[in-house]
């Protein structure tokens, strides 16, 4: 009993690695039905007419790439299929490379033109101050795009003066930027806001769904997989769902195993 209770943690790591690697290699697929929260974002983008403007804020860095990049890619594919104009930006300096790569690659796949159909405005420091500045005048907040082009001359931004003019704004966040978007931008400048976030912070975001401060929410890799299913473009997030399920079963078994041994050993006394 004591031997089992004092099991080397590296044995557990081996089980976890196996629970992830084996389902990835043998590739069994589990259904990934879309939840109401993820459908909120999908339906909103679907309802937009051609040439509408969507702002996507890529507020994450490589540490959260595995959860948020699949979301970003799925969203971009949906936007470009719908002929929506995409304006990207980031409030996280580590996010600029990921955002630029995602927008450019997705845009090229649909033969979209930079500056006409999509643009990446780059990074600005200040979070809430940037939002307030964008709410007053987007050209003042971002005089140039990521490549140094003056934003005032960009055809993609025609008809957009401030945050209020965007048909939809989506924040992909690994930190507290969703709350900032709600408090400093959405409530003040009145626009529809959706969000994608890491699974760690998603429990904190659910109250904003019920109050309609967010019209949709994608949480973690599961949210990305649901979106991939909705747009019928199954990629890395859907592929990650079978190992995710396998490892969750393993964690539950470990919890049951550990607690059973704990009580059987009589340590409660």
């Amino acid at each position, binding site marked *: 009993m004591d031997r089992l209770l004092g099991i080397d943690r590296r044995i557990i790591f081996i089980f976890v690695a196996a629970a992830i690697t084996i389902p990835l290699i043998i590739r069994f697929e589990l259904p990934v039905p879309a939840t109401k929260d993820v459908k909120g974002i999908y339906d909103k983008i679907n309802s937009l007419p051609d040439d509408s403007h969507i702002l996507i804020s890529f507020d994450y860095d490589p540490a959260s790439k595995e*959860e948020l990049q699949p979301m970003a890619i799925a969203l971009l594919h949906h936007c470009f299929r719908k002929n929506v104009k995409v304006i990207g930006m980031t409030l996280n300096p580590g996010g600029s490379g990921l955002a630029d790569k995602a927008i450019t690659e997705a845009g090229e796949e649909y033969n979209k033109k930079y500056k006409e159909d999509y643009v990446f405005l780059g990074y600005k420091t200040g979070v809430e101050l940037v939002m307030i500045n964008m709410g007053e005048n987007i050209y003042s907040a971002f005089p140039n795009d990521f490549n140094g082009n003056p934003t005032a001359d960009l055809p993609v931004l025609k008809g957009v003066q401030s945050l209020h003019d965007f048909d939809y704004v989506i924040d992909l966040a690994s930190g507290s930027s969703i709350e900032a978007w709600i408090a*400093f931008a959405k409530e003040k400048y009145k626009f529809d806001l959706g969000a994608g976030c890491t699974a760690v912070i998603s429990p904190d975001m659910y109250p904003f769904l019920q109050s309609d401060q967010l019209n949709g929410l994608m949480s973690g890799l599961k949210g990305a997989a649901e979106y991939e299913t909705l747009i019928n473009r199954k990629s890395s997030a859907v592929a990650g769902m079978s190992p995710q399920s396998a490892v969750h079963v393993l964690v539950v078994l470990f919890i049951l195993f550990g607690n059973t041994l704990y009580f059987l050993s009589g340590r409660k006394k």
Partner: protein
Amino acid sequence: MIKNREVSITTWILVAFCIINIFFLVTGKLGFDAKGLGIITAVAFTLAMYSFLYKDNPVFKIAENLFVGVAMGYWIIITWFNILKPDVFETLIVPFFNDTGNAPQYIVIIPTLLGIFMLLRFSTKLSWLSRWSFAFVVGLGAGITIPNFIHAFILKQLSFDLLITSNILDNINTFLILLGVVSVLIYFFFSMEHKGVIGGVSKIGVWYLMIAFGASFGFTVMARMSLLIGRIQFLVRDWLGLIQ
């Protein structure tokens, strides 16, 4: 003895890693270009970071320090090209020394000086100047944050139109949230002894807290496993080519 064994394990892993990559490069599975070499570098660092799961080791330390250094370098470059160059250098310094057709924007001097003052915390003689910057940041931050947060996170959440909807399940959900808020607040109300009705309601609050902690932990497990899935996907797909 143990140290010798660990050195030999590390050496053998490095040798195996080199042989595998040379094989991939020779057979053309990985290109001898920026992409191929990038994948090999990323794989090396991924394995170096996960080597910590065995135990702390010099390979992990090297990778950890390199990550911090590279991240900082990247952050500085992005900040220079996205903020300092367009907002300070090109609007204030360049027009001041050259005739660009635009007048220097002297207003930029104020935030620039406040930013420089922040860095003076490292100076024992001039660190007092950093208080001006902090006073500005704290004053501005509080002024902007307090009213917006009260409106967005308290008043909006208290809004009456959230309470009753046409959907019975939504109404049950709302009632459960209300019960949760009240019972948890009563649990943290220490001016009365937790006995009788107060004790019962505070017990409900404890249950709510436990469920919330459990949900948070579950989401955290999901997030951490997602990161591991992403890395293993990279190893078996982009490096080993076992899946498409």
